[in-house]
Each structure stands twice: as structure tokens, then as C-alpha cells.
């Protein structure tokens, strides 16, 4: 994960001539950190100062936690020069810490303290914390179920899509038979199969795996295929004059050359499969975060829904980050790739 720095240009190297510029320099470097600490202090105060309008058990702990974060931010900022990369990281993220503290304060005040926002639909931060502490086992079960389903379906879909894509790109005969099928079935949203899949597959789990694999497989197939098809013939000429057999041409020329395209397909497939996962869990599978969302809605447990949403977005973002990391490893030879 990369973070953009707001003050890279003037972070260091300023000539230190007299006292006033020195102070100004210090403030430029440490000001955001101190403000961040203040913002979190205010958030903590806002938790503890007023009475809650509802009945939430974690308000006090949340306030204390906010003060701890404020203290850590303050300490980290003051001694950033001695903390190495951790200090630099803190400095870089200080503006975000300010914004986060301000946002949380506003959220706390608008919900728990004065109920400016209608209450059951907009739960305060402490009620979401409460979900994480009190409903943890069920939430964790849901996370495991979702990850298992998603991982299985995605890996099957990616592998199948990759193999199909390479075969179409390489062999005219395979292309002749598979291409029309791909054109006919591929653009159909995988969720359209849902009712049929849940009837025809032995279990809702296998049906969902199939649908996730389908959603992943289509973009991976198409992009792998186009990647293999667009490999310059000059590469094949070089390899052939050096004695390469057809297997070498596929494995060591076509596939590595197509890999940047393959990764585009893998990213598209990942996005598409997330959507299928959630819908499948909501409709058929009795487990996973999608199901948890559905269940929470049935009980009008809005805090649980927000809590599950946050976990879900962390998981999805984590999956994308992981895929980026794998790509960056495999495609180090490319220059100027996008940083996630």
C-alpha cells in the first residue's frame, strides 16, 4: 500500500539559519501530527462529555481508546526523528488522522449525543465496536465462510479462464469451437444463472462456487486470449531460430508476453466475483458475510450491517492489494506500473 505525501517537497533539507525559520520548519513537520492528536482528544472528549441518548455499553471504552490514540500520535510526532520509518509513516499519515478524528467526532455527536441523524439507521461508533466485541464468533464464522467460498470459486475460475484463454489464443481448432460459446454465454451476468444453479447443483455451496468461477472465468479468458493473440510474431521468430519447440513457444514466449493482459483479466474477474459472492450468500448460502448482512437486516440490527460492511470492504481491498503484490512480483520487468 502506498501513501501519497502532502509535504514531500519540503520535508527536509531546509537550511537552518536562525531561530524563527527553525521554529517554522519544526511546525511544518510536526504541526499535522499535533493537530491529529488534538482531533482524537476531542473525539475522546465528545464520547465522555455528554450522556448517550441510547443504551450503549462501549462508549466509555471508546473514549479511552481515543485518548490512547491521541497520546500515541502526540508521542510519535514529538519523537518522530528517533522512530525511523515508523515516525516517517506517522508524519505522512497525520493529515488523514486529523480528518478521521474530526469525522468520528462529528459522527459521535450527530448520533449518540444529539441524535441529529435518525437513530436506528445511523448507529454511533460505539455500537459498531459493540458488534465486534460481542458478536465476534458469528462474524468470524461468516468471514471464514466467505473467504473459503470466494477463494475456491476464484481460483477455479481463474485457472479455467487462463487455460481456456491460452488454448483459444494458440489453437485455431479450439478457437473455432470455444469462441462462439464464449460470445454467447460470457456476457451474461453470472447472477442470472442463480435460480437455475441452485436447483441443478447438489448443494448451494457448489452452485455458488460455480457462479463465482463463471464470473471470474469470462474476463480472464478474454484477456488471456487477447494477450496471447497480440504477442509480436518477432518473439516467435527469435525463439524458433534458436531451436524452440512448440511447447517452449507457449510456455516461455506466449504466456510471459501475455501476462500483463492476464492480470487485467484477473482484476476484472475479482471485482465481478465479489458481486456474485454477496448475492449468492444473500439468496442461497446460509453462511458468509452476505448472509450476515441479510440476517442483520431481518433483525433491523443496523450496527451489525455497518460492522459487516466494514469487514467486507477490508477483505475486498485486501484481496486486491494481494493481487497487486503478486502482479508487481511477476511483472517487475514492466516499467511504470500503477501502484495500489
Amino acid at each position: 500500500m502506498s501513501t501519497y505525501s502532502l509535504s514531500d517537497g519540503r520535508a527536509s533539507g531546509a537550511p537552518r539559519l536562525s531561530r524563527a525559520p527553525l521554529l517554522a520548519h519544526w511546525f511544518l513537520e510536526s504541526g499535522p501530527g499535533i493537530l491529529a492528536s488534538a482531533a482524537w482528544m476531542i473525539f475522546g472528549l465528545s464520547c465522555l462529555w455528554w450522556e448517550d441518548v441510547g443504551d450503549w455499553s462501549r462508549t466509555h471504552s471508546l473514549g479511552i481508546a481515543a485518548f490512547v490514540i491521541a497520546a500515541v500520535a502526540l508521542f510519535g510526532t514529538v519523537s518522530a526523528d528517533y522512530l525511523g520509518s515508523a515516525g516517517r509513516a506517522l508524519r505522512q499519515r497525520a493529515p488523514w488522522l486529523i480528518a478521521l478524528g474530526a469525522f468520528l467526532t462529528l459522527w459521535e455527536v450527530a448520533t449518540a449525543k444529539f441524535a441529529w441523524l435518525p437513530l436506528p439507521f445511523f448507529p454511533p461508533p460505539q455500537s459498531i465496536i459493540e458488534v465486534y466485541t460481542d458478536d465476534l464468533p458469528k462474524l468470524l464464522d461468516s468471514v471464514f465462510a466467505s473467504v473459503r467460498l470466494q477463494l475456491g470459486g476464484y481460483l477455479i475460475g481463474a485457472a479455467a479462464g487462463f487455460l481456456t484463454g491460452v488454448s483459444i489464443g494458440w489453437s485455431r481448432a479450439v478457437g473455432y469451437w470455444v469462441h462462439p460459446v464464449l460470445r454467447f454465454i460470457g456476457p451474461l451476468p453470472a447472477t442470472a444463472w442463480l435460480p437455475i444453479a441452485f436447483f441443478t447443483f447438489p448443494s448451494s455451496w457448489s452452485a455458488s462456487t460455480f457462479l463465482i468461477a463463471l464470473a471470474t472465468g469470462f474476463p480472464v479468458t478474454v484477456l488471456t486470449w487477447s494477450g496471447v493473440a497480440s504477442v509480436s510474431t518477432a518473439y516467435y521468430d527469435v525463439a524458433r531460430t534458436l531451436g524452440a519447440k512448440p511447447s517452449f513457444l507457449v510456455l516461455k514466449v506466449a504466456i510471459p508476453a501475455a501476462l500483463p493482459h492476464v492480470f487485467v483479466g484477473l482484476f476484472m474477474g475479482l471485482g465481478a466475483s465479489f458481486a456474485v459472492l454477496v448475492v449468492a450468500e444473500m439468496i442461497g448460502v446460509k453462511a458468509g458475510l452476505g448472509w450476515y448482512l441479510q440476517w442483520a437486516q431481518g433483525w433491523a440490527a443496523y450496527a451489525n450491517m455497518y460492522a459487516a460492511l466494514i469487514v467486507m470492504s477490508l477483505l475486498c481491498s485486501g484481496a486486491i492489494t494481494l493481487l497487486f503484490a503478486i502482479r508487481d512480483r511477476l511483472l517487475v520487468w514492466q516499467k511504470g506500473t500503477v501502484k495500489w
Partner: protein
Amino acid sequence: MVAAAALAEVPGHSAAGAALDIEQVSHAFDIDGAELPVLTEVSIAVEPGEFVALLGPSGCGKSTLLRLVAGLDKPQSGSLREDEIRITRPHPSRVVVFQDPTLFPWRTVWDNVALGLEAQGILTSQRHRVDAALDLVGLSDFRTAYPHQLSGGMAQRVALARALVNDPKILILDEPLGKLDSLTRITMQAELVSLWQRKGFTTLLVTHDAEEALVLANRVVVFSERPARVKADIRVDRPYPRHRGDPYLADLRRQILGLLGLDATW
């Protein structure tokens, strides 16, 4: 020159050149239904170990002829034979250095040079040949670099190393020194001659530079405008190393430039 020796003295590799017979070869391309004749009845008989330079105007069909020799394309008519065996497909005994370096961008310099040995499945026992070839072109320090980190001239040198490492019987060079600065170029020319003398492979070199042809080759074949015919086939009987100021070569050069349509005052 030390590196050239290292590469040349690999045990167990017979380093004799092959004979190459190009007989009455004609070729044409199809561009939007219209036929574009490129080669007309080209015949060149190359002795084993000969160094033949091919000169001709741009777009006359030199690269096309080299592709036929390599076995990448089939001629419309006529035949090409390596040691009396008809050329029908590429073979690592005939290695080409293309006009573009076409390095594989996903491989490091070392892995690019190792490509031929890997494709033939003999890399594990022959890794030192890759190192020797890299030494030869002076790029040992760049073995772990990727092609996008190289200059144009360096990339061309890697392409040369990638060909030489295979110990070819016929080395086919399509303007391999075209992108080099004049200093490196002269060094590489000397290395090429020394390597060729040691190993005795047959060399086919396409170049735009008459002087380069005369410094390097036994024989200079001059082509006409497209469709290419052999316009002249000139022996260059001078010992190596040759000197650029040699009046005999200067005389030949004037003659060749005249054949290429340039004024004799050049």
C-alpha cells in the same frame, strides 16, 4: 578478444561453417491483393566459412532473403540448401541477429542470452557459455538488468550475444551494428572478425555501410533496387586485420557506391 577465445574454445563443439546454396530464389509478398515482387532469381553459393556481406538499397529485399535462409519463410520458387540439405524450417545451426534486437522484455539480460541453450534443453550444463558471450559483448555488469534498462546499442549487443552463444554453423546478421556508436562499432567489428576466424562459421551480413562490408567480408554481394537481383558479386582478397585507409579497399568502395547509384565523387 579473451572472451572470444573463451567462447570459441568450448570443448565438444565442432565449429565448422556450413555451405549455403541459394539457387534461383524468387519471392513476392501479397499486399491487399496486389503482388509485390521482392526477390528475382537470386543465386548465391556460399562456401563453408565464408564471410559474405549483402549490400543494397533500403527496402530491396535483404531482410526477406535472410528470413528465407533462416527457414522462417518459404520461397515462392527456387531452393535454399545448407550443406546440401534443403532448408524447410528454422534450426539452431542457423542463428539470426535481427534488425531489431527483439529482446524478451520479461527476461533479464542473462536469461535473454541463455534463451537458445534453454530452448534446446542444454542450459544446465552450458551456463558458462552464457557468461562468456556476455563478456564478449562487454555486458557482464548488466546480467541482471531488464531490456528496458538498456540503451539501444546495448540491446543490440545482447542480441548479438544471444546468437553467438549457440555456436551456429551459419551466422545471419541483419545490420547488427547499425545502432552502435562508431567506437563500439569498430570494436565489435574487430571482435566479430576475430570470432569468425577462430570458429570458422559461415557469415551472412546485411549492412548499409560499404566500408563495413569491405573491412569484414570475403565477398560483397550488391543487390539492385526492389525486386532484388544480384547486381555484382565482388571478392575481397585482403588479409585481416584490414585497414580502413587501404587504397585497394577504397577503390572497391568507390566501385560499390557506383553500383548503388551514388556519384563516383563520393
